[in-house]
């Protein structure tokens, strides 16, 4: 591959292929969205064809929730239709897969038939055939595609095919361009060959096939079956809005895949051009895409494509619209899976509800978080390369949260409100809530706002963490050459840990809710201690510890890896000249400093626990499982002193190591906690203090360690939030603080 593009104003053109292309993640999102949207429609078909009269009887018509809950579990009523629902969802998905496969396999033949193509005979047009061969060599293809053409056809060429067979369709007008306007011909053909080189042809045709299959096997049967019964105006509005929303979401996701592939093909093929001025002239003839159609268009805006000649920076940005799209896809999927899993689990106990939320989260979050993580990683890379700050994380997070609600939450709330108010075709299938429809909708809107706020906050933390991990690792030799598998592995680890945190948070919230509402606990210490017990129960313990340790270990362990050698950057398009990209300022990881702080603080915590335990009255132990005596309270007070010490070391670390402050704080606090926990075990095992068995002593120390780590997370985050504006102020106004040795890039 030969790249001869000049870097404008001394800037190198960044190579978007250095990281995973987001075409793949968008495609994964499309699969998730279509699968869930199809399942949702077949869920609707199943309920349409089920014996709803018995369901309504079971639900006592429009009885109030309180009446129904007093008699039975409302989910039990759905048990009768559960086999039908499962059967139809499976049938729908099987039909979707079969139809997609058929369309995908038939697509090349259909293209050949539709465009009236025939194999291009090199003896008939020898010059053209030679040029095509030369272009394939330029594109670095291992095997030339088959060239087919319709000498009388007009329109753009097309790369298509299935499996290993790749074809390029040419038309007479394009072939004519070879003689009339060779630059234009090269631009168009190299773009198609870039699709083959990028290996996105299969993804493209699968995306198209799945779209048609979804329309044929998901939306159409549902519309036909639903329209069989008498419809009121409200029914028709609900049906139309549902079908439109689903098809629009699938179409938007599909076109996002198509746009991404076009940009990547442009980025790849533009690097093969020698005549950039000629290329710019060709791109000036691109069909305009009206502003309002940009999200619906299968092509990116021409201006955006033209900019790629000089600058690929845009391909590294992760904007609010990207984030909104991911949120939308996740929302559609999540709000479909939620009622399905709730029905499958068929219980309203605390842990069943936890599973009902947890399972959809575990399916949807890895894909959505993966797409976002790749975006954040790339954006962080761009910010480092260009010496700029990254975009607003608040805006991106908020857009994703809004997307998630728009993708399913709004409709979910609306339908729930309509049914609960005793209106609509599904009236009587949920217990009645004695409130007017506007009140129910307002309550639902309030719930949506709470959800948006919570999700926005969680995403800000997630984006910040992924960004920090990217900053730590980009300077290592592991990612110094083309990252490939190392990057994928790192990303997978990040997503795994993020998923563990989701489960951990859900577990903690579920446990606290259970303790407060079911067990009627009101003692804060008892709630805190009992929640810490999750650290001991396998496999929850594994989830918790891997999550807690992985949170700081994944980014900070970059310090254990050798640093990248100067001049071995992988992030510009490889060309004949040496890489002239300046090394960006790789922020330092202070793992040793954090570890030293942790050990010193751990020893201090032990001494503090012996000499200065915090006062704890015996009554505070009520409900915690400990005996409410002064002796036990004294021992627990020492444990709490250790936990508090971890919080304090976290605060201290944030102030001492401003870069990746919270991560360093968690590391230091964890090490301090380990030192303290080992001391606790030794102390409890001493015969003079009762000679507790090792297992019991270890359990107590593990609870203390987890509690202390959580305290450290809270203390460290709050200190960081308070310290950030102070540092910002000092950087602006204090010359001493701006000393290069103390320069801090605020993150």
């Amino acid at each position, binding site marked *: 591959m030969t790249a001869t593009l000049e870097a404008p104003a001394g800037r190198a053109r960044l190579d978007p292929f250095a990281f995973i292309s987001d075409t793949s993640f968008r495609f994964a999102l499309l699969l998730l969205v279509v699968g869930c949207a199809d399942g949702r429609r077949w869920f609707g078909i199943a309920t349409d064809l089920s014996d709803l009269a018995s369901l309504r009887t079971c639900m006592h018509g429009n009885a109030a929730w309180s009446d129904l809950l007093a008699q039975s579990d409302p989910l039990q009523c759905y048990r009768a239709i559960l086999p039908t629902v499962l059967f139809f969802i499976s049938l729908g998905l099987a039909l979707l897969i079969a139809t997609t496969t058929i369309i995908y396999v038939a697509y090349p033949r259909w293209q050949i038939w539709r465009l009236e193509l025939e194999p291009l005979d090199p003896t008939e047009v020898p010059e053209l055939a030679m040029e095509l061969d030369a272009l394939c060599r330029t594109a670095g293809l291992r095997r030339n595609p088959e060239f087919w053409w319709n000498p*009388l056809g007009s329109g*753009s*060429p*097309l790369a298509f095919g299935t499996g290993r067979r790749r074809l390029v369709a040419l038309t*007479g007008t394009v072939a*004519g361009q070879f*003689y009339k306007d060779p630059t234009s011909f090269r631009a168009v053909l190299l773009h198609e060959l870039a699709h083959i080189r990028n290996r996105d042809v299969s993804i493209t045709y699968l995306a198209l096939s799945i779209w048609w299959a979804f329309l044929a096997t998901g939306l159409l049967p549902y519309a036909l079956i639903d329209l069989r019964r008498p419809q009121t105006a409200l029914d028709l509005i609900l049906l139309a809005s549902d079908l439109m929303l689903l098809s629009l979401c699938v179409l938007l996701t599909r076109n996002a895949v198509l746009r991404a592939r076009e940009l990547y093909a442009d980025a790849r093929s533009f690097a093969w051009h020698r005549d950039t001025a000629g290329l710019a002239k060709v791109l000036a*003839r691109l069909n305009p895409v009206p502003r309002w159609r940009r999200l619906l268009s299968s092509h990116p805006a021409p201006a955006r494509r033209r900019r790629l000649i000089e600058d690929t920076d845009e391909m590294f940005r992760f904007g609010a619209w990207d984030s909104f799209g991911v949120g939308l896809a996740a929302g559609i999927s999540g709000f479909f899976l939620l009622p399905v899993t709730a029905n499958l689990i068929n219980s309203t106990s605390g842990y069943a509800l936890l599973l009902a939320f947890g399972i959809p989260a575990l399916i949807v979050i890895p894909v959505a978080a993966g797409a976002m993580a790749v975006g954040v990683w790339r954006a962080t890379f761009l910010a480092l390369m260009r010496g700029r700050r990254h975009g607003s994380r608040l805006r991106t997070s908020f857009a994703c949260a809004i997307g998630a609600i728009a993708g399913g939450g709004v409709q979910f709330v609306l339908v729930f409100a309509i049914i609960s108010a005793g209106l609509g075709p599904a009236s009587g299938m949920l217990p009645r809530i004695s409130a007017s429809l506007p009140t129910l909708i307002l309550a639902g809107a309030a719930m949506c706002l709470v959800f948006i706020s919570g999700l926005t906050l969680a995403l800000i933390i997630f984006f910040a963490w992924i960004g920090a991990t990217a900053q730590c690792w980009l300077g290592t030799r592991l990612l110094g050459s083309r990252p490939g598998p190392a990057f994928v592995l790192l990303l997978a680890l990040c997503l795994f840990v993020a998923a563990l945190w989701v489960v951990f948070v859900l577990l903690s919230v579920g446990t606290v809710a259970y303790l407060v509402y079911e067990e009627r606990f009101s003692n804060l210490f008892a709630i805190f201690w009992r929640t810490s017990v999750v650290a001991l129960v396998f496999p929850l313990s594994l989830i918790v510890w891997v999550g807690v340790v992985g949170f700081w270990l994944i980014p900070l362990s970059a310090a254990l890896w050798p640093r990248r050698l100067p001049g071995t950057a992988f992030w510009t398009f490889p060309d004949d000249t040496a890489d002239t990209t300046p090394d960006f300022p790789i922020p330092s990881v202070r793992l040793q400093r954090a570890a030293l702080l942790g050990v010193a603080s751990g020893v201090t915590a032990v001494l503090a626990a012996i000499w200065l335990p915090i006062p704890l009255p015996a009554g505070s132990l009520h409900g915690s499982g400990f005996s409410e005596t002064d002796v036990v309270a004294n021992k627990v007070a020492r444990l709490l002193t250790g936990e508090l010490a971890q919080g304090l070391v976290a605060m201290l670390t944030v102030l001492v190591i401003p870069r990746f402050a919270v991560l360093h704080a968690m590391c230091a606090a964890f090490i301090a906690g380990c030192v303290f926990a080992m001391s606790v075990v030794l102390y409890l095992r001493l015969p003079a203090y009762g000679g507790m068995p090792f297992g019991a002593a270890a359990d107590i120390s593990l609870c203390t360690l987890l509690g202390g780590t959580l305290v450290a997370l809270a203390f460290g985050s709050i200190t960081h939030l308070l310290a950030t504006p102070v540092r910002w102020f000092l950087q602006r106004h204090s010359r001493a603080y701006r000393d290069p040795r103390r320069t801090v890039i605020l993150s």
Partner: protein
Amino acid sequence: VDQRSVTELARSAIAQVAPDELPLFEAMTRVWFKDPRLARVRRGGDETLGFGLAEVAPLLTPIVLATAGEIAKYLAEELGKSLAHMTADGIVQRIGRLFRREPVSPALTQTQLSRIHDVATQLLQTTAVTRDQSSFVADALVGLLSSPAPDRS
């Protein structure tokens, strides 16, 4: 009229109006005579997946071939009326010679040439070519039919 004669006239016209298409002329002619329908020429590629360039000017070769065919039909009717003593084969041969630009006697009249121009223009206006291109192509065809080729010997 035989394919060879229509092809000859079309090739001469293309050499004047769109010489860039000459390298593809054989291939286009071969496909055209397999299924000579103008509707085929208008069929485009898949723009959802294409490069996204604005449509380039249409190919003139199939349009000129279609026009030449239409002119041949007109001439067959017209000469059939004016040369009633001639057999059908004789008329076809005469049109073939006209298309190949061999000297024929008597030559086409000004009225006949004017009518040929109208026939060509009418057909061309149903295609994707512009009005200017229509006149250009029609003028070229009439010009070719009105003047025999220079002596090739």
